[in-house]
């Protein structure tokens, strides 16, 4: 720090120091947050505000009072939606964490394969995915009809209907939020903390209840938020199982009725409920600290001794995977069955590969797949860039408006996809500053933008959860070794967050590939996504070819999962770890 000789120089040095000196000064957070807030404002918050504005445009808040009156659709819908969402969180939590436990705590042959399969249910193609649940669990489903035949009863056995059906669909499609978050967090936990609990005499169950689950809080909170909001905004499942007194159904019905302000009121109410839940969860999470305070880096987990654990885990995992993959198998069944060959039979009576031949022989069969791939990748890249930074800002920096930033990210997840798309169209149908003066609708960019806006919360949440476990002194160490804030951030913090970031990116990517409700409103002929292609088949009831398309999508997701699993574990480390476990 040699003092500059001339005053000009020293003044410039002082300024430079102040600008670069950054990360520790009180206003550094604002410097970092300002562009993020601007992005959020321009691309997410401000478009979404349109919904709220519309809800109060005609007759003020009178629409909202409908939620307060004791009888009436509004309040019943709200309550039904809340009940479904809360139950979904619990169910997905149980299934997701259990799967994470089985797959991340034990090593056995075929585990990697199962890990790659496990995200597939989250990526079930729209509509065809929903139909597959019908074909499995509803009154016309394989399972109830199979049981009916088995027991010789009059009516199908164990047929899911109504809310139970909705919950089944939600559990199957959303447990990966929990599974991924929990497994990333489990990998990042300080193993010695768990050992300490065992040492103090706690049994396995108690250790999970009092140490592991609480330490997973950030991950579970993140997953709960996502599941809660997804359930709240879920549309297809209530539709399929005939639960029409839900918020989303009311939004749709009101739009069909032409009562746009009321539809917006419902949408805004959804947003408000989600924000309330978000704030609750933030408070809950903020009460405790989850960063390891241990000195140094602890050795990996102790070895598994329990022979029951060794055998039970793989068996349970395989069984669970079979159950979870059943909807995918159903799609495969449809894809390989002959048209009209599956009516009252339990499973199809005739099989064919015609459906695949049909779609593959089309000249542009792969175009939608490529489109989806490209747009999802773009959006995911954006989500990672912005989401990781926001996660860092919200978790690590002290500045005014942290909660607002958090809410800003999540709001697009809390609203139904249709509403998000409509808002984006309105915001970007003419040029504005954020679109660089260009009208984005009708161009390629609107779809990646929509995916970005919709799926930013996934990356943000997952990153934030993994950041909660990372000791900030690691970053400090890098800083004291001379690394600039950026360098320390990228080489240490982001690197350590990576499991969480990968999880978020995977979720964003997978959801991007499957996105339908928003896509259908904004796609162009050159950007037909795979979901729209599938839907076109469904629409004309070419259910076989639609399923075949769906299988291609499933395959794509599987391949991505397989390779990302490789990436995440870094091969070498994984095998070594497994070696140690089984020693």
């Amino acid at each position, binding site marked *: 720090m040699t*003092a500059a000789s001339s005053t000009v120089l020293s003044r410039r040095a002082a300024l430079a120091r102040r600008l670069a000196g950054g990360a520790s000064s009180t206003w550094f957070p604002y410097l970092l947050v300002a562009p993020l807030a601007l992005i959020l404002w321009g691309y997410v918050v401000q478009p979404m505000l349109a919904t709220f504005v519309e809800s109060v445009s005609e007759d003020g808040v009178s629409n909202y009072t409908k939620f307060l009156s004791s009888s009436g659709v509004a309040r019943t819908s709200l309550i039904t939606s809340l009940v479904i969402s809360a139950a979904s969180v619990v169910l997905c939590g149980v299934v997701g964490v259990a799967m994470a436990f089985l797959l991340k705590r034990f090593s056995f042959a075929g585990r990697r394969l199962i890990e790659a399969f496990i995200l597939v249910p989250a990526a079930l193609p729209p509509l065809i995915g929903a139909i597959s649940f019908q074909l499995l669990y509803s009154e016309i489903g394989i399972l109830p009809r199979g049981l009916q035949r088995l027991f010789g009863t009059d009516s199908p056995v164990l047929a899911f209907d109504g809310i139970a059906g909705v919950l089944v669909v939600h559990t199957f499609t959303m447990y990966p939020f929990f599974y991924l978050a929990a497994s990333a967090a489990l990998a990042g936990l300080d193993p010695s903390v768990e050992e300490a609990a065992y040492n103090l005499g706690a049994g396995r169950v108690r250790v999970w209840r009092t140490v592991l689950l609480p330490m997973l809080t950030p991950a579970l909170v993140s997953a709960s938020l996502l599941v809660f909001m997804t359930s709240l905004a879920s549309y297809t499942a209530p539709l399929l199982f005939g639960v029409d007194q839900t918020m989303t159904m009311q939004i749709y019905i009101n739009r069909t009725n032409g009562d746009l302000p009321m539809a917006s009121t419902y949408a805004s109410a959804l947003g408000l409920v989600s924000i309330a839940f978000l704030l609750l969860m933030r408070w809950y999470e903020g009460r405790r600290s989850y960063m390891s305070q241990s000195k*140094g880096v*602890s050795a990996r987990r102790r070895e598994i001794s329990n022979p029951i654990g060794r055998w039970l885990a793989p068996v349970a995992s395989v069984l669970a995977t079979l159950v979870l993959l059943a909807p995918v198998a159903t799609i495969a069944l449809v894809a390989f069955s002959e048209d009209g060959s599956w009516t009252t039979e339990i499973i199809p009576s005739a099989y064919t590969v015609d459906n695949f031949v049909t779609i593959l022989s089309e000249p542009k069969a792969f175009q939608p797949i490529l489109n989806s791939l490209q747009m999802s990748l773009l959006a995911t890249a954006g989500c990672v860039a912005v989401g990781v930074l926001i996660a860092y800002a919200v978790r690590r920096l002290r500045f005014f408006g942290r909660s607002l930033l958090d809410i800003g990210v999540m709001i697009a997840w809390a609203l139904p996809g249709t509403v998000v798309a409509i808002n984006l169209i309105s915001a970007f149908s003419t040029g504005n500053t954020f679109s660089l003066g260009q009208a984005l609708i009708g161009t390629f960019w609107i779809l990646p933008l929509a995916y970005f806006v919709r799926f930013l919360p996934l990356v943000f949440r997952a990153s934030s959860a993994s950041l909660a476990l990372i000791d900030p002194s*690691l970053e400090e160490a890098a800083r*004291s*070794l001379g690394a600039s804030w950026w360098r320390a951030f990228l080489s240490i913090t982001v690197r350590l967050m990576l499991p969480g970031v990968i999880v978020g990116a995977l979720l964003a990517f997978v959801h991007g590939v499957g996105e339908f409700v928003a896509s259908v409103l904004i796609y162009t002929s050159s950007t037909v996504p795979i979901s729209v292609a599938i839907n076109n088949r469904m629409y004309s009831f070419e259910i076989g070819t639609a399923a075949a398309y769906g299988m291609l999508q499933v395959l794509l997701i599987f391949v991505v999962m397989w390779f990302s699993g490789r990436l995440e574990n870094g091969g070498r480390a994984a095998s070594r770890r497994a070696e140690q476990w089984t020693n």
Partner: protein
Amino acid sequence: MIDVELESVSKRFARSGEAAAVDDVTLTIGAGEFFTLLGPSGCGKTTTLRMVAGFYFPTVGHIRFGGQDVTRLAPNKRDTGMVFQNYALFPHMTVSQNVAYGLKVRKVSRADASRRVAEALAQVHLDGYGSRRIEELSGGQQQRVALARALVIRPRMLLLDEPLSNLDAKLREETRTEIRRIQRDAGTTAIYVTHDQAEAMAMSDRIAVMQAGRVQQIGTPREVYHQPANAFVARFIGRSNVLSLPVTSADATRVEVALPGGGHIAAGAPDGHGLRAGDTALVSARPEHIALAGPDDPDAIRGRVTALEFTGMATHLTVDIGAEEGGEVTVAAVDVPDRVDVGDRIGLRLSADRLWVVRP
């Protein structure tokens, strides 16, 4: 030349109640000086170090490096090398990568860096561990990696927070010699936190003794040891017996006190001690400056052995001399006669030229 200056620095944490973790600390450290912070657990040593490193901002006060205010300068602009009390090793990097990190940031050429990394690992006796993952090291090995990582970048200032606490005595001694050598050779200023007084004594140019966030005394090891500023410092540095004895006569630098068994003895006293005949003086006597005598030795203080502790080099006896004079006295004796045992009556003789009067 003054290198580091803390001016009335205080740090208050939101949650630690009303008390400040660091309370109005003012001190200056010269360039190339080896300065040690010593004090009981929780007294604010780490907090002080972290403010110097730039990870905390003082609630009030200023920090200057070479006259320049750095109170809010970014940590990476300070060119300090820090060993964290909890190591803060990068878990995703191998040992070598950890050590090389600072060099990479400094854009040291690859060949140069790998040479320096190897050298640094050798200095902490970790040759051959370069490709290990951090989690595959023992606690002490991890601590040494943290040390190597800070030393290898040859910063202008070293901040060492108990860098040797998990090492065995042998290695600790070797390593501290190494640290001292590196620090001297490069003229690095070092701020060192330790709870090992022998270490502090052996290594430091000067020591600041802290308690409850406040500095109690700053001085060379000998000053701090032989002329403690107050009873806390006397008791904290080494073992010391602080006896309350009546003053029989006093001048500017000496105070004569009466011994319980009869007889007088002179003790050194700090400037402006303000004691007069008739006052009670607190006199600090180090265990090793008390010799054993027969229980009936007329010049000796009489007492009864209450405990006997063998520590290798010396045996520590605890002797009860009666509540009034200071309760129990500890004596370090190299060769304790075999017949002495707990419960025995015994005489203690103070050596006059090592006694020192302390403030309460």
